[in-house]
């Protein structure tokens, strides 16, 4: 049986054929066992689908159910909850953290220079530190009035 013939039998089972064609197919199914088998199978499939399909019933009437959906579509959108207003100078606060990090870095880098800047000045205008040679001695004297400090080096 070709596909065209099978579709014709399916239309007959579903009651979709006009009356001359309906009678022709009915006669064909009676005399042809293959067509009869296909018609029987199609009927079983149809009844299985009808009986096996679950039925859902709305808890409210059909009109009320659809009117609720319609109202929901027609109603204006509910406004989204607003984010809390940013405090004043929030834009300034955003810069505090990076500026603080930068200031700390700058302070660490500048510490040696600051230490020198604020270090107490040497108390005396000049002072001897060391004489590496054993046969060298020295005497330091200073004249405040002349603004001169002399380290006199004596070689023994």
């Amino acid at each position, binding site marked *: 049986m070709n596909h065209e013939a099978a579709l014709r039998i399916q239309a007959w089972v579903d009651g979709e054929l006009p009356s001359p064609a309906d009678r022709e197919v009915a006669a064909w199914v009676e005399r042809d066992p293959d067509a009869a088998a296909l018609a029987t199978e199609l009927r079983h499939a149809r009844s299985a689908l009808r009986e096996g399909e679950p039925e859902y019933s709305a808890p409210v009437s059909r009109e009320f159910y659809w009117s609720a959906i319609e109202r929901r579509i027609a109603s204006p959108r509910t406004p989204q909850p607003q984010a809390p207003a940013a405090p004043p100078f929030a834009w300034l606060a*955003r*810069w505090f*953290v*990076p*500026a603080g*990090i*930068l200031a700390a870095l*700058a302070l660490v880098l500048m510490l040696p220079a600051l230490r*020198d*800047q604020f*270090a107490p*000045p*040497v108390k*005396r*205008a*000049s*002072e*001897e*530190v*060391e*004489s*590496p*040679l054993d046969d*060298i001695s*020295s005497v330091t004297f200073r*004249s405040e009035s*002349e*603004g*001169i*400090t*002399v*380290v*006199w*080096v*004596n*070689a023994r």
Partner: protein
Amino acid sequence: MGIKTGMNRIILHTLLCVAASLWFLAGTPAVSGADLALRSQLLWGTDQEKPRESTYKEVDPKVKGKLSRIFKWKHYFEINQQKVTLEANDTKRLKLSAKCEIDVRFLDAHTLEIKLYGEGKWTKTIRQSVAALNRGELAVLAGDDKDKYGDAWFVVLSADRP
């Protein structure tokens, strides 16, 4: 999500701050407040008159006046004079004669270290207040002249001011 966005903003702002600082620093001339113009003089103190063949000249009156009010010698001849600009983290060696050299360097912004070398040997180290030099004071290293009894040598350091 919110924390990630916040961190990204902080990183972005930090980078912007760093970039702005670098731009500012790049346009700022280097601070050279520690630079010091120094004058070093090697002097010969003697009672003798200047030898005829000598090219030595008497030291300038200001230095001579200071020395004369302390020491006994009549004359202070300048053997050599060198000027140098000393920068931070910089050591300068000044050869004042065949036998006399000094090293000068900043210990810190306020203090100079001066090392004296006699005949190539490290002989003495002193520390000198930079502020005192800038006030016009003199730092002097001196000693007896080995070759001429009764004479003396002086290494005089001062701030070189126009």
